């Protein structure tokens, strides 16, 4: 299916089926068929490695923002040695503009569970943890129910479906820390510690939870796995943009008429998403800017959007990224200075404080932006802000400093006139 046909796309993650969260309904609609197949159909799936190869071939690019081929990531796990190995599922979605994984927890938890179980089998994993942000208490309860149902039906636990494969599956609740969405910070949090990202190497595949091999995948990434197993890698690759194939959960928020989460092929034109999918601009206002994939991805002006599609290649041409595909749409009345200050405030609040450039830089950025927002800034402050972004970017253990720096750099560069407008007029006068 090419990107142009997105209107005829039939959703697979969140299909139009009532009460799909109920395990019986899920099974009736073909659920857990993929899992049963990989566990028992030895002709099709000779060994766990064959599953990894199929997923690698499908090129499911990580939906948490980094976009790394999931199957390739799985293949980094060292050979099983009989000791514990872990799959940690990342349901800590907290990047402003991102609210997609909760839809899976709510409407189709079993597709994620099934995907996680297939991943676990493929990597010969012994325990699965799903880390869900603490604010999602209601979804945590839903997930706990779904996992318990799957245990009852024999899809999780000892000797699954008589296959000889056993795995445990637990929910771990966060407690309010954006940084725990960073994969190694999430491992620290799972281990019961302050969420400080770890220094890499060693990578989690070598030394993850409790020093054992661990793979971390996003919820949506894993939810794509059952369909890849059922329909094959070729089917998945045939959907959407070639470089970033498959369906994507687009979260659209901000000044549109029908905000929400939409499952569509990757590579849908941004303007189609705004005007057709999300019902157009609210109150008939004009489009001013879009943040395409969560608050850390560089903002795009309306005039940059013609022909740009939601995939990494196309977005790169205008200097942005797909991120989490959590799109934030802004209309002509939006105060860009306020928006940037609020984004900076967020990263300042969420910096774990471990690395110097991020701990100090995020606070400094916010304080200068507050000054500018309040009309006390000077034009030289804008240049200082740009300078600070280079002092933070690429200088820390994790990418939070980058995520804080990029919006500042690109928003100022792309809306410089609005920032200068807000700054104090020059006090130099000719006499």
């Amino acid at each position, binding site marked *: 299916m090419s990107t142009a046909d997105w209107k005829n796309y039939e*959703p697979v993650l*969140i299909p*139009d*089926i*009532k009460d799909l969260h109920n395990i019986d309904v899920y099974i009736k609609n073909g659920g857990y068929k993929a899992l049963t197949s990989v566990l028992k159909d030895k002709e099709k799936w000779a060994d766990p490695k064959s599953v990894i190869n199929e997923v690698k071939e499908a090129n499911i690019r990580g939906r948490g923002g980094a976009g790394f081929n999931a199957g390739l990531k799985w293949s980094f796990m060292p050979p099983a040695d009989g000791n*514990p190995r872990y799959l940690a599922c990342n349901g800590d*979605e*907290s*990047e*402003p*503009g*991102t*609210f997609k994984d*909760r*839809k899976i927890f*709510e*409407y189709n938890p079993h597709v994620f569970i099934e995907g996680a179980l297939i991943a676990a089998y493929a990597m010969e994993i012994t325990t699965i943890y799903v880390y869900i*942000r*603490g*604010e999602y*208490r*209601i979804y945590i309860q839903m997930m706990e129910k779904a996992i318990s149902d799957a245990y009852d039906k024999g899809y999780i636990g000892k000797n699954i479906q008589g296959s000889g494969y056993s795995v445990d599956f*637990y929910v*771990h*609740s*966060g*407690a*309010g*820390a*954006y940084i725990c969405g960073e994969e190694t910070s999430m491992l620290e*949090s*799972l*281990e*019961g*510690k*302050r*969420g400080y990202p770890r220094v890499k190497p060693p990578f989690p595949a070598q030394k993850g939870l*409790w020093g054992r091999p661990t793979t971390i995948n996003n919820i949506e990434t894993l939810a794509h796995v059952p369909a890849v197993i059922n329909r094959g890698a070729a089917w998945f690759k045939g959907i959407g943009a070639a470089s970033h194939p498959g369906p994507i959960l687009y*979260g*659209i*928020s*901000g*000044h549109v008429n*029908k*905000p*929400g*989460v*939409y499952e569509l092929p990757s590579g849908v034109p941004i303007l189609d998403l705004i005007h057709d999918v*999300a019902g157009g601009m609210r109150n008939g206002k004009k489009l001013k800017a879009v*943040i395409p994939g969560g*608050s850390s991805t560089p903002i795009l002006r309306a005039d940059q959007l013609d022909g740009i599609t939601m995939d990494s290649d196309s977005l790169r041409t205008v200097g942005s990224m797909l991120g989490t595909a*959590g799109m*934030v749409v802004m209309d002509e009345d*939006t105060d860009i200075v*306020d*928006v940037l200050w*609020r984004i900076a405030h*967020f990263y300042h*609040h969420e910096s*774990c404080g471990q690395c110097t450039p991020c701990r100090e830089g995020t606070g400094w950025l916010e304080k200068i932006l507050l000054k500018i927002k309040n009309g006390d800034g000077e034009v030289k402050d804008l240049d200082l802000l740009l300078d600070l972004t280079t002092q933070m970017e690429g200088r820390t253990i994790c990418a939070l400093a980058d995520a804080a720096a990029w919006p500042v750099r690109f928003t100022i560069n792309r809306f410089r006139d609005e920032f200068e407008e807000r700054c104090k007029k020059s006090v130099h006068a000719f006499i």
Partner: protein
Amino acid sequence: MAYEFTKEDLEQIEEIKSRYPEVMPATLPVLWVAQNRFGHVNPEVQNLVAETLGLPHSHVHGVAEFYTQYYKEEKGKYVLDVCTCLSCQLCGGYDILHYLEEKLGIKKGETTQDGMFTLNEAECLGACGYAPMLQVTNDQYVNHLTKEKIDMLVESLKKGEKPEYEKIGMPQRENI
């Protein structure tokens, strides 16, 4: 006041410990058990958690202080976390926050004198499509806020009626 876990809590804590190969990973979930029991995890409760798990007091303190959802002191009966981050900001999150400040007669971060409400400004709660929104005491989300909806929410909370789970359908689909 001396804080103690009930027998049921202790059973739950044992169950939690069984999910992990070590005790330390139980820190976050057991802090949740404690907060659900006592309404907060002040230093005394932190020490109780540390002693129950046999972990250093400083460890539990450091963890409790890192995560924003743990209340390190007693809060109002209802904690209203109003999201003002990005999408909520764009859709009037600050108007909602200021309306609540006015209505409750307190500033963000404060608790009403009757101990009923604590008002906080929250970072992104992952409900960007349903902005503006708030969360009541780490539990239900109340979405698509308007002044009228706030009025109704505050009234029903005063009566002790907690908000129901708001199911928001998928805009693309008919059945769900």
